[in-house]
């Protein structure tokens, strides 16, 4: 505990927003979700429950808006006043966007949420005192608070169901904020394996639970700074850059599908979505 430590490392502690003199190296985890492939089946959401020990809150608490789905599937309708939704609906999987300049990180009074060197927005459960300022500041409202003590609540994890819990992931008690972590437990395990072999994690070696489960393969996840990774290639071909609030390609109609949500807020999300396509000929 030293003032020295504070002064020396302050910049590093707070400044993982990508800048030229400190680029992400060797990892920057990012995701790309193809909305034309997403069918809205909710497999990713259930897989996330299984992998990350998410509690099922039950009907009453769900009604109060206290659900815990880190990955939620939103469903939008076209808003052109037609009698029927003749061009179908639109599904959007929304989870923590792991923003590079996350509005949640700056406002936590106890520094329970920070940015990691590999570009994740970290949530440190045992530091969190539950002020919920991070959630207040999140533009996407993808942070979920433990409003009750789910491990001790009836019927959340009755006997035998506790055996399903993933030992790699903390089971959170009450008063703690949580959110999608890009399955950091899997990332850590993969990094350790790679490190033991003296290399970095290869593309496809580690998958998030949602990505692994998605039947259409709509979710791409990987290392954005690895030029061989699928996610890097997707961001590149879509001409979406991480540290911009307005992409160059948006100046004219490029016909490229990639975009990020609420980009103008300069949170620099690490998740790129590919626009759904609708056939004009029918």
């Amino acid at each position, binding site marked *: *505990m*030293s003032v020295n*430590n*504070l002064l020396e490392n302050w910049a590093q502690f*707070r400044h993982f927003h990508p800048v030229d003199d400190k680029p992400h190296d060797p990892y920057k985890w990012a995701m790309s979700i193809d909305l034309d492939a997403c069918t809205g089946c909710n497999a990713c959401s259930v897989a996330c429950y299984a992998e990350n020990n998410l509690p099922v809150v039950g009907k009453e*608490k769900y*009604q*109060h*808006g*206290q*659900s815990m789905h880190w990955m*939620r599937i*939103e469903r939008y309708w076209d808003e052109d006043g037609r009698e029927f939704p003749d061009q179908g609906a639109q599904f959007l999987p*929304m989870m923590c966007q792991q923003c590079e300049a996350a*509005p949640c990180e*700056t*406002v*936590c*009074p*106890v*520094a329970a949420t920070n940015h990691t060197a590999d570009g994740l927005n970290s949530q440190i459960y045992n*530091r*969190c*005192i*539950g*002020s*919920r*300022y991070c*959630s*207040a*500041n999140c*533009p*996407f*409202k993808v*942070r*979920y*608070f*433990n*409003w*009750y*003590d789910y491990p001790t609540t009836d019927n959340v994890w009755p006997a035998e169901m506790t055996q399903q819990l993933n030992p790699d992931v903390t089971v959170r008690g*009450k*008063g*703690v*904020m949580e959110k999608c972590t890009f399955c950091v437990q899997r990332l850590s395990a993969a990094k350790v394996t790679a490190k033991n072999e003296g290399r970095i994690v290869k593309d496809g070696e580690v998958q998030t639970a949602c990505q692994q489960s998605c039947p259409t393969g709509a979710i791409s996840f990987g290392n954005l700074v690895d030029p061989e990774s699928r996610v890097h290639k997707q961001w590149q071909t879509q001409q979406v850059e991480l540290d911009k609030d307005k992409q160059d390609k948006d100046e004219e109609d490029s016909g490229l599908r990639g975009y990020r949500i*609420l980009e103008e*807020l300069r949170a620099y999300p690490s998740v790129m979505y590919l626009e759904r396509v609708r056939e004009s000929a029918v």
Partner: protein
Amino acid sequence: MKDIREDIAWVKINQDVLKSLENPRKLYWIIIFCALAVFSVGVGCEVYQYRNGMGVANLNNPNVWGLYIATFIFWIGMSHSGTLLSAILHLMHADWRKPIYRFAEAMTTFSLMTAGLFVMVHIGRLWQFYYSLPYPNERGVWPNFQSPLLWDAMAIFTYLSSSVLFLFVGMIPDLAICRDNMKEGWRKKLYTLLSLGWEGTDRQWRNFRVTYLTIACFLIPLAVSVHSIVASDFGMSQQPGWHVTSFPPYFVAGALYSGCAAIITLFIILRYVFKFEEYMTLPILKKTVRLTFAIAMVWTYLNAVEFASVWYSHDGASKDVLIQKMTGPFAFAWWGMVFCGSVVPLVLAFKRFQTNIPVLLVVSLLLNLGMWLERWMIVAPTFSHGYYPWTWDHDQWPSMIQWGIVFGSFGWFTLLFMVFCKVFPSVSMYEVKEMVYHRSLHLKKSETAEQGAH
């Protein structure tokens, strides 16, 4: 017209004020009991919430903050009353503050103590609140200095300690009077202890004046900064309806406003209960009312500035929030705020009402209600109508637990204040004496130097 009669004998001042410290009548105990009951309800609710989790407050995603933060800001706001009267008006040599600043200063201190409670009540893991303090730990972890909530913690702590100091220091000469006029008992022991051996010598008075002035000068920027920092909890966020640069002055104006309104309320009550008509006179009341009116207009202006700037900005999200406040589920509270905060104070512009006690009592309560609603309207609508439409309007009403704790806080404040009124002089005797023209330098027969020619 003079603020108070100039021919009140010093002895009478002592007598009148010390009379308020006599054993209380039955009504006092009834009110204490009620306050205690309400406070216990609050405590019960908090215990329930502590054991079960914040969910019992009916908070949810996205409505993660509710009445706790709103009431917290309200109490911080109320705390500016004392600072305004004690410090600011002191620097302006507005002598009319002298009979009334003591209880205002007490109100400040107790408001801050109540506000501090809400910080605890509001966080999800109350038993680990000390993580927000920079205490030595083996992990070398500091709290996050970028966070406005942390600035809050620092600022309020500083403000509270300074206010307590200010209140205490300002009371020392009065405590000496109390000490000198009390029979043996716990009171005499208490006053003896607290008056720190004050004898009223020249030297002591000189030191006293300098100290008092210094703390006053120190307290004013502190008060402004505290509420500005509380405002920056919102101003520093990019949420629509919050990201407004005029929030710091707006909050400070609102704080002064609710503080003044509370002063009027307590003025009327104390004046009646302790029969302080000689000291808490109508001219002083009138001046307070006019000050309140002025601040009300300033607040109204800043409010209008906020709306106007939202209106002419291109910030669609903020506009949506404003329209939502005006027309959505919260409309009743928003318009209530406008009515109580901007329309009701117009009554105070009329001379007829400026000294009409019943009207003023009602008006002052309404003004404070308006200010409480204002805090709620700043906190809640942004959550239920933020940037992300999928999460809009999701069951945003507080549960009985939240109301229980909010009312409990009023019970707590009342309890503290009532105890204060019976243990400490709620009118500053030595300052009133300064206001009174001292006709006779002779001491009356019954008075001796020991008894109190202070």
